[in-house]
């Protein structure tokens, strides 16, 4: 019986070969794994112990991928996907959360979903998501850097490795993207009524 990790590996290879369909299949797998990990994390009693995002992603990677035959470059792919998945997880949750607050939530959300996003985010995630999508239109590289750094939890160096850029370049592009996004969000704050304010 092919295990789930076989499947993930194959999908990664396919995606690496340019098959966009593979990405569509990969995301739900990773999404559920990350959710599972995040859930475990929340309910695990480990006082004084915390997990950093990267560690979380590493663990997810470990669980999903059979290390012995994982191709080296797949790790880079994985981080890219994980960052995307993380983005989707958080945005979805934020959307539901916003819906609940507005009292117009059509669907019930489970306890752990609510717990996952129980704290009010400092950053308006939904606005950020929109701005990031807009950034991808004019500068896909900067948008990917933000995705890896912010949603994937990667450091400058790790991002450089994954994107095959020098750390200096990543740092420069990150600085500019951050300024651009901040500006975009400031604009949205002025122009749009926030649903949860």
């Amino acid at each position, binding site marked *: 019986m092919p295990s789930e990790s076989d499947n993930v590996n194959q999908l990664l290879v396919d995606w690496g070969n340019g098959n966009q369909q593979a990405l569509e299949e990969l995301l739900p797998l990773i999404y559920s794994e990350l959710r599972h990990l*995040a859930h475990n*994390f*929340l309910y695990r009693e480990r006082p*004084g*112990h*915390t*997990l*950093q*995002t*990267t*560690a*979380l992603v*590493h*663990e997810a*990677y*470990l669980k999903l991928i059979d*290390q*012995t*035959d*994982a*191709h*080296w*470059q797949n790790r*880079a792919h994985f981080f890219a996907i994980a960052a995307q998945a*993380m*983005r989707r997880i*958080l945005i979805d949750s934020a959307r539901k959360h916003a819906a609940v607050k507005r009292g117009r939530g059509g669907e019930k959300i489970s306890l752990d979903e609510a717990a*996952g*996003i*129980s*704290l009010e*985010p*400092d*950053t308006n*995630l939904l606005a*950020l998501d929109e701005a990031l999508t807009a950034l991808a239109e*004019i*500068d896909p590289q900067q948008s990917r850097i*933000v995705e890896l*750094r*912010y*949603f*994937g*939890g990667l450091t400058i*160096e790790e991002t450089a*490795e994954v994107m*095959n850029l*020098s*750390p*200096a370049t990543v740092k*420069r592009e990150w*600085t*500019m993207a*951050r*300024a*651009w*996004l*901040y*500006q975009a969000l*400031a604009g949205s704050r002025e122009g749009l009524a926030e649903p949860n304010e």
Partner: protein
Amino acid sequence: MNSANRQQLKELFHAAVELAPPDREAFLKANCAADAELHCEVSALLTAHESAGDFIEHPALVDVGLVADNESNRSAAVTGQQIGSYRIIRELGRGGMGSVYLAARADESFDKQVALKLIKRGMDSDAIIKRFVMERQILANLDHPNIARLIDGGTTEDGLPYFVLEYIEGTTITRYCDQHKLNTIERLKLFRQVCAAVQFAHQNLIVHRDLKPSNIIVTADGTPKLLDFGIAKLFSSDWSSSVEATATIGRVLTPEYASPEELRGLPVTTSSDVYSLGVVLYELLSGHRPFNFESRSPEDVARKIAESQPIKPSVVITRIETERHADDPKQISSTPEAISRARDGNIDKLRRRLVGDLDNILLKALRKEPERRYTSVQEFSEDLRRHLEGLPVLARPDTLSYRTSKFITRHKAGMAAVLIVALTLVSATIVTGWQARVARIGRARAERRFGEIRKLSNSLVIEVQSSLTTIPGTAPTQRLLAQKSLDYLDSLAQDEDKDVGVLGELASAYLNVGSLQAWTLFDSAGALQSYQKAVAIQRKRILLAPNDVTTKTDLAFGLFKLSEALAGLSRQEELFQACDELIELQKTLLAADPANAERLSGVAGSYERRGDLLRAFKRNEEANADFHSALASIKQEINLAKETASDPQARVNLSYYYIQQGSAFDNLGEWQNAAESFQIAGRIAEDVYRENPGLTQARRNVTSSHNQRGDALDKLGDYRGALENYRYTLKVATEARARNPNSSDLRYSEAKDTIKVGIALHKVGDVSDSFELVRKGLALSRQYMAEDRSRAATIFYGTELFQQGADFLASKGRHEEAIAVYQEALQILERSAAETIQDSGFRNLMARYEAAVGDLYASFDSETKTIKATSQGALLKARNSYQQSLDTLRSLQQRGVFFSDLANRLEEVSQKLSACETALAKLKS
């Protein structure tokens, strides 16, 4: 916005953000005066940048409170803190899972600085902690002058593990060599010290996996030190695969130094370290990397390393290359002038230095297939030594044969048929086609062509055979292949070829075929013929190159194989001729270098071998004379070693020589002397072990000397003394295993020593404890075998322990229990034998144990050689067991397998069988 605008915007923003805020406006005015919109846009971005604070600086999961982020400001927070008894001074560096800090003992002056490695907070997932603890464990086992030493370790108040290392101040090996303008010889000598450290790690079953210049630091006094075992791997089977798997997680590989197998995610072995060391040496000698990557994208690197061959170092030094170094993002140009300037010589001299040997050595270390590289770091380093001493090196240039053999290994079995046809054709061509060919294409080209065909065929023989031996059911093909190979080799041998290298290849090809005949085809007579041919060629080589030491050591190996075959066939006269020649040869080698302890060891070993064989043929007096001669050589060896025994390794060697001396006395029946030698060996080894608890060899010598001293005392009748020594051995083994709970070797020692203590307890009258310990020892043996069942040696050693336990139980009248132990051993052996075609070793043991079970049922009295059992049931069971043993022995005999005592045992078991039959017949009548 179009892309040109975007680019312009980016450039302006990047430039402006580097400036102090008050200067920015002037800069923008000067640079985008013509484009007000652009100016406005950059200004807005700069304003946003200034007011963004820590906007999205923390990962999203932290922002939403899903995880806490303690990583930022971590360094600042740690500095000045106390961890254990160390005070942190500053951060030295950061890795994937932790940071390294400069620290000093808090209770002392800041004189002695150390490096403290602390796991990152937030990175403390179980898997990462496991890996961190593994690095600490690995270092604890590595005490070597050229490896950064582990000083201390512990857990912080928050429960994070840390460890403390020797702080190494110095520069990377490449920079050190260039700064000091070391010439090629000096570089090689320095590099060999690095090899010694890596070899030491390998001896302790550790692969470094990340050897690169930045992990090899040379201190001010010129001592190289190996750092960072963070991704090292234990290659013994006793580490669970989960630990091994995590070891590769999250690491940033340095692709320039990684071996092809590592880049492809295949298993990493000691051979991968040979490769990485090859890259380091390539760079030290030539100033270039073997591969120059246009980009460092993983795909490009992996493809380049997999597909292209490295350029010869002697060629590459004349080139100008621009490359990006791993630890330096700047572009670096390597020009011949710069390279020779740093290496004390002009470029031509440097090129000539590399041409030939060093080219060959480096390319051998850098081969794609691990099995085509040097088999060990030691062999690599030894070849460099030979080069330094002007001796011929092992490495040969790659030719057609190498490239073809790559193809062969991928198509193993199918190639056998092709090979057989090819060999037939080639043999025919060599004999008949030579003259015609010379006439047609000229001698020089004909020779070259034949050289290629010959090398190709030689490698085909070796490659295909070695790959076939592991495939069950290919015996008939292999037999045919062996025959065709021999035809081919015979035709080649007739050819008038006087080249020492070619003859060497031919001799080793004959030895290879001989081993195949002996160990896979069980054709001992055929094997003998092949060995004889090899030895004849090796003798011829010595005449051709009398000053080449390797021709003599090669002959010594050939004679050793020959004596193995002759002993199996009980051909005494020729056997002892071969042994005599072997001894003479070792003496000649010693005469050329009388102060060489290794050569003395060779002489002692050859005497011991003849002594053992003489004893096997019951020629005890002559055997004793040989053991005396061996002893004399060992004494010389000890005297030599005493003079130089200052560093721990030399003292470990000295203790080993005393152990050898003890064994020699033991062979002579001089137990008192033996016990004394073992005692001296034990004292030396204990001293070293106490000071260097990580030195595995020291521990082995401690246990081995006490164990054998116990044996000698036992023979002297001093049972209490023996018990004391066995108990000590057990204690050391148990303590060592507590530190390495997964070590298979230590599991074995514990099992063996437990049984020994158990048996010794009986001799001093402590009967109940005795049985309890023997049973415990058997349980440990069972566990030992279960944990590592796929290794043949484990099964041999483990069942041997079963035999010891069973024999003890039987000798104390517990026959039922002993039979049960033997039967369990037989089951294990049967299963192992069924899993391999090289099963003769297992079957041989089975024959032994079946006979032993027969003896137990028959109550066989070994003194009077009579059967004491009288009940029909016991006699029937005995008869069946003897019959089984006889059947097994006969099948081994039919295969023509080499076991020198096979004929005797056949006779013995058939006598016992007929005695059983007689006794049964008497009962009936």
